[in-house]
């Protein structure tokens, strides 16, 4: 009975990491103001910028949750089973939003520009 109880406890603890994954790959909030970078003299708008970032561990089964290609899972297996010098998949942005910026140009003219891929909106494992 003691052995069974111990096994049941260990199995329970083992499966918990799948139910409540720790430090999983996900989008994190990060906000900065251009005044921190001393760019507020020439960047009129926006005053703040939230680029966000991706951080966390990539699980073994990545295809369903993160839309990763099969190769990512293969590389994970290679890292775990065959060669640990092969890098394990990383948590990186998968999709982005653009950003509009209003600036004062060196000649005193004013420019409104829309830049692509300035804000991370979704993470993936690659």
């Amino acid at each position, binding site marked *: 009975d003691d052995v069974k109880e111990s096994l049941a406890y260990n199995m329970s603890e083992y499966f918990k990491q799948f139910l409540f994954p720790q430090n999983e790959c996900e989008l994190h*909030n990060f906000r900065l103001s251009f005044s921190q970078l*001393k760019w507020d*003299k*020439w960047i*009129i*708008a*926006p005053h703040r*910028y*939230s680029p966000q970032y991706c951080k966390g561990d990539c699980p073994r089964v990545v295809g369903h949750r993160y839309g990763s290609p099969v190769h990512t899972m293969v590389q994970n297996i290679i890292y775990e089973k065959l060669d640990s010098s092969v890098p394990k998949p990383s948590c990186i942005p998968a999709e982005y*939003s*653009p*950003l*509009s*910026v*209003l600036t*004062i*140009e*060196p*000649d*005193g*003219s*004013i*420019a*409104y*520009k*829309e*830049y*692509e*891929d300035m*804000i991370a*909106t*979704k993470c993936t494992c690659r």
Partner: protein
Amino acid sequence: SPSSKDDVVPDETLELLLVPDNKLPELPPLLLLPPGMRHGYTLLPPLLKVLSDQRHQHWESEVPRLQPDSRALRYMKRLYKMSATKEGIPKVKRSHLYNTVRLFTPHAECKYHHRNEMKGDLHSVDLLFNLDRVTALEHLLKSVLLYSFDRSVSSSFPITCMCHLVVKENDPSSQVCPSVPQSITFNLRFELTRRKWVEIDVTSFLQPLITTNKRNVHMAVNFTCLKDDQHQNFKQEGSFNTALVLPSLILYLNDTSKQAYHRWNVLRFQKRNPVWSRPRNSPLADPAEDAGRDDTEGKRASRHRR
């Protein structure tokens, strides 16, 4: 003072060495360095050279820039509010395809004022715009002359202006399309109490110039204005002239470079997949916009199902 030409060191490097930056390794002041090392800005390790170049560029960006006119700044801030959400994300509008808007104030101007009580008040301005900031990858969609009015001046009567605009080419032989009209005359009628801005579309004139990478645009604009009330004889003398501030030139452009946002890709995608929209759970979505869109899309989706 340097004893020879070889000992001359760029000023920004001198500043760099005498005032060490927190990010740079500690370096002794230049004068304490042995002559061989003084000679060697080029002898500095490549990494330090790169850092000093970057510092030079950074220093350049810290030089105070020419400040634009406050009215122009107000107009562009308004344009920004209309074009982007509070988080700075461009609104996907079908009404415009520009991803770049540039506002230029004239560099040189000469005002001529002729007063004629019968014919009205003639206001003539020579304008020169420098378009160096427009890159080769920015294609012109529309250009307007933006006139703003001094709020302290008001008129209870509508004003009618006859405007004559001439684009001046310094070298007529360099005109690419001589048949393109170089001047136009048109009428404007407005009330000062209602309007803050007047935009005059000059796209047809500027398109050939910008396409051929002309950096300087020279035009003359003449306004002859009369109040619509015939009994009024310009009691506020010169009031309309002071109200009429020098125009700015606004260019609506499509930047085709990689780093620019190409909204037509999004519009094309939405056209093919009308059910798709911006992710609702996106922390960056504008809640007010999404609330409105949800209702519309819900109705559209149910209509589609029926």
